[in-house]
Structures are given as structure tokens and as C-alpha cells.
């Protein structure tokens, strides 16, 4: 996890920093929205470096991720180099560089969840959503990620679906949860296999 990030960071550090891997706004309308929301958050803080993490948390809370425009704006506001903002963003697990899906899926891989097969559940989510952890489905419906522990160890294996911890999520429950969202793909695949 971390090594990937640091590799990414090193690439970006070489020569002029580019933040090439960082997502930018897709169009002018989105850019304006990002800038406006970022500025709203910045107004709540004075220009001290100690507020960098709370600011980032605020912006991500609003936008769901940290786009390039926000990070540049924040660096400018605090009077620090953009790469310093980026280095903090990539250090902490909480911060995301990808836009979120409509629904967030967080598979807990804490000790208790691991012992009760959390990794099998993660595989099931990956298979059903056809994405890897840390990614968002192309239709931006779901994003999948792992979390170290949400402290609901007695309900292991846990998956946090849209901020709500769901207990005993085994592969069959994954399909059930997806059906709850009206996610048709899972259903179609099942029908196909049954008609075989």
C-alpha cells in the first residue's frame, strides 16, 4: 500500500513536480465547483500549517476526494509548496485521489475479520464489481477500498457500506447487498449460471 504511494511520489518528485497521477476536473463546470467548495472550507481556517490535515479532511468530506485543483489552492492558501500538500495526502490512508462512487464499499481486514475470511469477502466484492480495491466502477456507482479495522470485531467479517457497518458479510451476503442497491449485474450473472 505505502510502497506504491511512495513510488508514485518519487516519480512525481523527479525533476519538476507534476502531480501527473492526480485527477483533475473533467470540465470547466466541475473545476468551478471544486474551486468554490475548496474556498468555502478554507474560509473556516486561519493560514497555519497545522490546519493542513483538517482542511484536507474538510475538502474530502465535501468532494469525496482530493483533486489537483484543491491541493494547489490549499498550498497557495497556507503558503507551502504543493508537493508538501501532496506528500501529506499520500501519507495518510484516509485521503483519496480518485473520485468516489455513489456508494462506498469498505471491506474490513482487521484481525478478527481476517480470521473469519475478510479476504474472501474482498475477493467477492472485486469479482462482482469488477474493480480492484482503491478503484471506482466506470459508472461511478461503487468504489471499493479496504480498511484496517472499524472496531466491530464481534460482527466479523465486516463490510462498511455507505458508512454503515454490515456484519457477517460473506460472499453470499455480498450478492444480497448488491441486490439491495438494485445492482443488476450480479443478478444477471446468477440467472445465466442457472440456465446453464
Amino acid at each position: 500500500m505505502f510502497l506504491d504511494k511512495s513510488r508514485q511520489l518519487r516519480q512525481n518528485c523527479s525533476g519538476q513536480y507534476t502531480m501527473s497521477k492526480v485527477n483533475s476536473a473533467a470540465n470547466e463546470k466541475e473545476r468551478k465547483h471544486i474551486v468554490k467548495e475548496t474556498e468555502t472550507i478554507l474560509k473556516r481556517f486561519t493560514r497555519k500549517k497545522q490546519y493542513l490535515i483538517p482542511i484536507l479532511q474538510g475538502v474530502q468530506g465535501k468532494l469525496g476526494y482530493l483533486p489537483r485543483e484543491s491541493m494547489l489552492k490549499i498550498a497557495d492558501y497556507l503558503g507551502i509548496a504543493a508537493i508538501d500538500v501532496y506528500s501529506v495526502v499520500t501519507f495518510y490512508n484516509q485521503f483519496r485521489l480518485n473520485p468516489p462512487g455513489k456508494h462506498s464499499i469498505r471491506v474490513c481486514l482487521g484481525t478478527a475479520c481476517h480470521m473469519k475470511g475478510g479476504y474472501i469477502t474482498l475477493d467477492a466484492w472485486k469479482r462482482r464489481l469488477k474493480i480492484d480495491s482503491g478503484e471506482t466502477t466506470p459508472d461511478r456507482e461503487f468504489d471499493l477500498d479496504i480498511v484496517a479495522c472499524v472496531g466491530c470485531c464481534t460482527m466479523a467479517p465486516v463490510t462498511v457500506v455507505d458508512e454503515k457497518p454490515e456484519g457477517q458479510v460473506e460472499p453470499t451476503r455480498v450478492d444480497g447487498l448488491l441486490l439491495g442497491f438494485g445492482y443488476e449485474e450480479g443478478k444477471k450473472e446468477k440467472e445465466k449460471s442457472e440456465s446453464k
Partner: protein
Amino acid sequence: MTAAKPGKKDRRTVFVCQGTGCVSGKSIEITEALARAVKEQGLDGIDIDFTGCHGFCEQGPVAIIEPEGIFYTHVTVNDVPEIVTSHLRDGKPVERLFYIDPVSGQAIPLYKDIKFYSMQQRIILRNCGHINPERIDDYIARGGYEALKKVLKEMTPQQVIDTLKASGLRGRGGAGFSTGQKWQFCYDVKAKQKYMICNADEGDPGAFMDRSTMEGDPHTVLEGMTIAAYAIGASEGYIYIRAEYPLAVKRVRLAIKQAEKAGYLGKNILGSDFSLNMHVKEGAGAFVCGEETALMASIEGKRGMPRSRPPFPATSGLWGKPTTINNVKSLATVPVIIARGADWYAGIGTEKSKGTCVFALTGKIANSGLIEVPMGIKLRDIIYEIGGGIPGGKKFKAVQTGGPSGGCLPESYLDSPVNYESLTEAGSMMGSGGMVVMDEDTCMVDIARYFLSFTQAESCGKCVPCRVGTKQMLDILERICRGEGVKEDIALLEKLGNDIKAGSLCALGQTAPNPVLTTLRYFKDEYEAHIEEKRCPALSCASLISFYILPDKCQGCGICARECPADAITGGKRLIHVIDQEKCVKCGTCLEVCPTRFGAVTKVSGETIEVPKEPIPVTAEKPKAGTAT
């Protein structure tokens, strides 16, 4: 506790647990439904309230009816009408919601009779589950803020520190350093500005005691922190909480507001000239930030990377100012020590480890949850008496203490006492108090790999032994789990582990190899089975196991084929099903869904089972076990 006679106008209160565990079991909806039902029925003298975590999350959502002390488990919204009509109106408790003792199978109605609770001694968690954490008056009613009054009115900072030293309290964050001594160091430094920090960055997977304390009794943490700040002479306080604990953040923030309004925090606390300004800082998800110098870097808005000590935080901490950092549990103990005296506290526990310790008991155990026990208790008592043993008649294999940096202890250690020294001696550690029980289905190589993958990912990257060494160890372990290990791997793992321990700057690197080294010490045979026989004795490592459907047992019901997430099972009505080993993802769903009366799916390691290549009809001479369609 006297049982209230039905019909009488004694005030009764239904406390519904609203800790994170129970909330995810819809306990908020249950509270609302109870309040609605009581109102609709027009019942008098009944209050519906909620509390923080009771610790018995396994049985959640739970509710207690006071003053009788009736304890209901696994409550759902559908049970509400029956609780209200039968119990609250007619005085007849709902027996089917009583706790069932896993050993004797008996139903136990009263909270105080349940072994899980009766064997505990609750000091840190004294109020959790008994008060509404969102009301300061509940805390005050149970003696809250009395210790603070006593400290501010009667004691000098040095007297407070001396009391703490005499109590023998040691830091509950892991290392076990004397709390009083820590305060003394900071007190002795002369400075205009000092800081008090509460470390609530509980990052250990499998540990949730700090979260439950903050959710269930936030004021005790604030009170302990205020006393500590008074002792060392700090005027600014920071509580560093994981952002993954939104409920704890919310309740602590609320508690700060209430305490400020009531004069227990802020300017001139309780009319004295002592002032304390409290801030909440949300961590952003980095395990290493539990290390004190990394935590301070994080508060300053930097990457949370540890630095070398000295200078210790007591002389140069946050923004270069003298700082004291204490764990949530240490601070929650402080008010009790002040209120009841150092001698009382020093009378609990063992000679070197005083007081109680909180463990988050999880894994393969009947009663998982949060427990608080006196130091020196035997592991066996925790696991078999309080924890109720291993469920499903499985055999105990190991217990892991201290989170990902701790070690796995085998059965031979079950009778050794729990304290800082004995655990360290056995190669593990007290840590922040995670306790994970493992049974025969847990592969020790895999569990070592799992813990190392966690610490490896969380290594901040500053020191080479930790950054590169743990990666190498992880690569070796992954190879062994895939069945590609070689004989030399065991010696290499041992050497790497000891080098990393010796060469790392902070506790993360110094302890990261512990799970590997302890499993090598106590469970070497499992490593050898993986390496030499390419076999996983616990039937857990996916690359070394396979699933088969036994032709003499399969009745062709088709459940497994329907549920298989990988479409790896072929078959049909009344046909013996066959698993395509190439397609199988080893998730175990087929084993789980195969009806127990057939028991046709089996899991093996290191062997193959003769099965038909294609689905064949279930033969006529076989017993027709029902109409299996």
C-alpha cells in the same frame, strides 16, 4: 438491586446500548420504537434511554432494564411490542431474549449473574453502559468531576504526581511506563507553554477499547486529562482520535462543550486560576501515528513520521514545547485513583503491574467483547471463564496479544499470569490490549503473514530495516503460504526478524517481527508442513487446499452450484456435482451451503480425492435422503 413490583409507580429505565456494535444492529431504531410503544400504551414511570458500549458486543443489540437489572440480548425492532407489553406493563420479563450461557445452556436473566460480567473488575469502564454518554449530569451523578474538584481545591501539582506514583499506574498504551514518572519529567521542565495530549489513535486491528471508552464515558477521559494538565502545568490539550471513529469524535466534542459550559473546562476551571483549552484532532489513518513523536508531527500538520528520542516529549514535544502524551485508558483511570486513593489502586493487580487492564477479546471465542480484569489474571480464566471458550467444540490453538506487534502464545502459556513482564518474556507484549483467540482452523503461518502485511504497509518508510526488511520477510511468508517455500527460509526469517528489531528507530519496527518470531518459536511444525510437505495443517492457505464433492454423499440438490460465486460447479438435478479445480476460487461457500444432512463437500490439503470427472446420476442404491430437490 431490588426488583420493582409490577404495577407500582417505581421509575424504571430501559437502557439501550448505542455503542458502534449495537448501532449497526439497529439499536437507534429500537430506542425510538421503545419510546413510541411506551407512549402509545400510556405507561407511566418508564424512561427510555441509551448508553455507550456495554462491552458484550457479541450479544448485541443489548438492553438493560433498571433497577431490576434484567439483561436482554439480540433485541430487534420486532421484539419491542413484546418487551413493552409483557415486561414493562405486565411485569413478565421476555424469557426468550435472556442471555444463554454457552457452557451450561441455561438462560440467565440478570446482568450481574452473567459470568462474562461477574468475573470482571471494572475501573476504567466503570460507567460504560450505565450512563447516557451524551449527558454530563449522568456522569456527575455517579461521582464524576469530584476528583477534579479535590485536585483543584486541595492538592498541589506535586501532590497529584506523588499520588499517581504511589498508585503504581503504568501507561496503558503499550510500553507500560510509570504515568506519575512521566508527569514528573514534564512538571520539572520550566516553560511558559506546555501541552497535554490524549492518544486516542487506536490503530490496532482488533482493538476497540479506547473507542468504547470515549463513546461510553467521554467525560472520564476529559476529567483525567484536565487533572493531568493541572499536574504538569499545561494550558492547551489535544485529543487525537482516529477519524474512523465518527461516533467517538462526536461524543467527545459534545462532552467538551458540556464541560466548558459547566465550568469543568476552559478559563478559570471551578473558580481556580487554572485554565485548559481543549481541542479535538482527527487522525487521518496512519497506524504509526500511535507512536508519540509521529502523533505530534501529525498534529503539527506534517507526515506522521517518528523522530529519534531524546529529546523526549517531556522536554521538547509539540512545537518544541514540553508535552505529555497519555493513552485514553491511563487517563480514564486517573479520576478513580484520585477519588479512592493510591493505596486502594495499588492493592489491585500484581507487584509490578498494578490495577486492571482492558482487553478486546475477539477471534474464535464464544463471548467476544470488551473486558476489564485485574492484572495477574490467568489467560485461561479470560478465555474459558469470561470468554466462554472456543465455539463449535474446536480446539484452542493460540492467543495473540498486543495487536499486530504482539506475539502468538500457545496452550502452554494459558496458566501464566497476564502482566507487562510475563508477556514480554514470552515474546509478546501487553500492547494496547487486543486479544485474539485462534482455534485449530487458524493457520499460524498465514496469521503471521497477515500481521506482517499490516505493519509492512504501515511502515512510514524512514528506517531501512523496517521499510525494506519487513518487505523481504513478507515476500518470504507469502511464498511459503503459496507452497513455494524452501528450507532455508526459516533461518532467514529468524535472522531478518532479529535484525529489524535491533535496527529500527521506533516501536513499530522494533516489534513488527514479533508475530513471525513467536510463531516460529511455538509453531515451527506448521512452517515445516508448508515448506516440506506443501500442506497447510489448518486447511486455511488458499493455494494449498482444495474442495471436493464426495460422490457417495452428494444428492444432487444443486444448492452449491447455485451459490458458487465462481461458477466452478457443474451438475444438475439428481446428478453428482463436480468442482472444476481450475475455476475454484477456494472461497468455501459450497462447504458452507451444503446441507448438513448430506455433508458432501470436503476440504483437504496435501492430498487429492478421486471424484468423477463429469457429473453422473445419483445412483439408485443410495439412500434417498428425503426428496432433495
